[in-house]
């Protein structure tokens, strides 16, 4: 409610209030009520995202429930025999799928973390402002390219190239998927890590320079340790991006449900959880065990990303607190 001000009589007198600036609910019931109702309504709208999260959890769990309670959860997480479409003796061992997700994510992070971190350092401390104005949009474009376009590139350009030039039996393999996932995760890592590095503050850097350290020494020994919480959060969010990615791994990883042997051989085909869901959901019968099993996979994915998200949030809030404390 606007506080009406009224000038009393002669102009020489300054503003004079004839009623208090803030009305108590008793004095302005309608105003109080409209404000309260309006606020509640806005709050209700704001809760749409809360509702969405709850609905996602409820409905994924609901569809996964028949599978989870049928006692196959142990099999899901312990066996690597994935024969879900078998008529009489279907087997739901998702260990190979979990391993596949792990392989491509790990492969992606091995590439993306150093590159992303170095690029973030470059952007925050080294590059002149004008060049930064050009480089930043380029990295944003990398993030904007749709995942299916990356998958298209991996499948039709990178895979044939790999097969021809690296002498691999198949161009669609864990290495291919990791490479592309790394490119997709890098922009996330850069943007969060750069924020963290910038937030570390001038004083820290100037102190280090004053002690005679070079720029590299300052960055490695002072700035990066100071920004470590934010950097960890960046890595975790990049990891989430990689683990939840569907189209690229579906098109580029070869989709063979196996654990590579020897274990370090990234040039073999793997199959991830996301690709399994995307590839098999269209062919299952609604309500079958296979269908519920795919939802159970979705549930596992959801739990993994949710946990990662909470950990990321923790590190981000720690970074924020450190920033607040420094000021």
């Amino acid at each position, binding site marked *: 409610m606007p506080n009406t001000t009224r000038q009393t009589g002669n102009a020489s007198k300054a503003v004079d209030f004839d009623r208090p600036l803030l009305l108590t609910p008793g004095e302005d019931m309608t105003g109080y009520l409209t404000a309260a109702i309006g606020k509640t309504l806005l709050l209700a709208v704001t809760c749409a995202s*809360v509702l969405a999260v709850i609905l*996602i959890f409820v409905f*994924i769990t609901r569809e996964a429930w028949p599978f989870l309670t049928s006692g196959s959860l142990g099999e899901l997480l312990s066996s690597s025999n994935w024969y879900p479409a078998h008529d009489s003796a279907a087997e739901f061992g998702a260990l190979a799928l979990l391993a596949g997700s792990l392989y491509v994510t790990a492969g992606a992070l091995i590439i993306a973390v150093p590159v992303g971190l170095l*690029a973030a350092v*470059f952007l925050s401390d080294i590059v002149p402002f004008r060049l930064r104005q050009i480089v930043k949009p380029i990295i*944003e474009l990398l993030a*904007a390219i749709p995942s299916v*376009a990356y998958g298209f*590139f991996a499948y039709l350009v990178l895979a044939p190239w790999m097969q021809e030039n690296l002498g691999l039996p198949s161009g669609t393999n864990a290495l291919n998927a990791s490479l592309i996932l790394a*490119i997709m995760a890098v922009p996330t890592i850069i943007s969060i890590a750069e924020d963290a590095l910038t937030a570390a503050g001038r004083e820290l850097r100037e102190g280090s320079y004053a002690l005679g350290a070079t720029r590299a020494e300052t960055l490695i020994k002072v700035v990066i340790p100071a920004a470590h919480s934010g950097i960890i959060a960046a890595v975790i969010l990049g990891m989430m991006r990689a683990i939840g990615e569907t189209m690229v791994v579906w098109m580029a990883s070869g989709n063979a449900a196996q654990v590579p042997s020897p274990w370090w051989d990234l040039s073999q085909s793997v199959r991830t959880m996301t690709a399994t869901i995307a590839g098999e959901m269209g062919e299952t019968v609604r309500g079958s065990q296979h269908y519920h099993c795919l939802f159970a996979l979705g549930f596992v994915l959801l739990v993994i990303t949710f946990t990662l998200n909470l950990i990321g949030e923790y590190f981000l809030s720690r970074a924020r607190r450190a920033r607040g404390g420094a000021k």
Partner: protein
Amino acid sequence: MRTRLRQFGDRTFTTVSGLSVLLLTGALVVILGPLFWRGAGAVVFRGTVEFRRMQYDMHGRGNKETLNAESDQAAHVRKDAYDLLESFAAGIDTTGLQKEARRIYRQFKTQLRNKVENIAITPEEASLLKSVGKKLRNHLLEAYETTKPDEAKQSLDFVLKHAGDENLAGSVAGQFFDMARQYLQIVITVDLTRREEYGETLNEVQEIIRELLGPRPGEPLPELSQFQYGATRWDRAQLLLDRLVWNEEWVEQGSGKSLKKVRTKRAEQFAGTELAGLFPMVEQNLEKMLCPQRTFYWQYFIDDSTPGHFFGGVGPEILGTLLLTLLSMVFAVPLGVTAAGYLVECAGDSRFVRVIRTCINTLAGVPSVVFGLFGLAFFVLYLQPKLGLPKGSSILAGAMTLAALVLPVLIRASEEAIRAVPRSYKEASLALGAGKFRTFVTVTLPAAAPGILTGIILSISRAAGETAPILFTAAVALGPIPETLTQPTRTLSYGSYDIAVGDRIAALVPHQQYGMVMTLIALVLVLNLAAIIIRRRLEAKLRGQ
């Protein structure tokens, strides 16, 4: 020394970190380069007369007179090649003749049956004639199949012995004798042994010629539009020409080694025969046969495609993508902007608000395929039947799933935009006596509008590119253009997946594959560029004040 070492380390660090950025830029170029370069080939290319004929047949584009003149000219040049092929095929490719013989025999049988019904002959006579006819047919077929001239001559002689048979005079079986006489000529003049040698290759050559020049004039048109036209593009024609001139074989190089590709000239395979002249002739006259012209096929973006995307464009896919994303914005924008307004203006830092923020972050972190599962379980399988809507995936369900997906993006962007509005704006408004609500609607929101618009544009680009959420909720690879929002639709994103992986016909036409994905990327990049430009202007404006 130590100082120098440290300086060296410093420079190395700078270089390496600069290289990492360079690497990313390089990755962008390497990825977008081939996609755009080859995708542009779907729109700008050298179209042949076949392409113009297809455009005229399907959409009525182009001038009929010039097209006909061109076609006649091309047909004139093509005729020599056809003649050459036909004269060579006689005696080698007898499948057509065999078919003809069988057809005549069937006709002969019906004729006999009719005669019996009309009581022109008795059934006994008819069966006798039938067995004679059958013998004639079989001998004729033997003659067509054998590669030994003597055997062929014997069989043909047997057939021709019956030529004077009065019982057969005037019946359809008379045609057998004409065929036999004609083939006897061929047997005498042509070396039949070549059939084994050339039969298969000849088939291949005929097949390639058909793909290159289209079905021969006078031949019945095939059902599928894919086979109704020859090479519509010059680059494809060149590819086919290469296949015509060169024969490729994979030869084993001994056990354990991989196969090796060996190319031999077909002209050498056919050396000494009249067909050897076909290859240089086609090679030299291909331009005249197809009349390629530089074509700017902008209708690629509005045309529907034929099955397998063999011909045509991506019109329905673009339409579907726009429908889905805009509808999802209809759901997401009011929710997102309101939520952002609340979070900035009304909410403090209470525990509940923190829960809301955590939920928004969680939502942003949910894998896109899980959104797809959620959309399937909630919108398609739960909500749609409850609301009495038709079963199955629909644009509506897909749009709502996408709305949930972009909600966090939208909220964050709007929040940032609203927060960036200078305090002085709000204070001035409040000081003028406007209430909090009025201030927000009439002052803060308009000031934040460009920023919010940026967020909306980025959300549209995100929604347009997402595939996994609409896999089970809204997308189909093939299907009619949707009439209502309760039907599924084709989209650019799912189309890009399907055309690359799922579609076997599309694998024959790479320009169509790349064209689809180029359209998607171009759409997303244009949206992003627009967002970047708006943001730049906004930043400049805010800095200026």
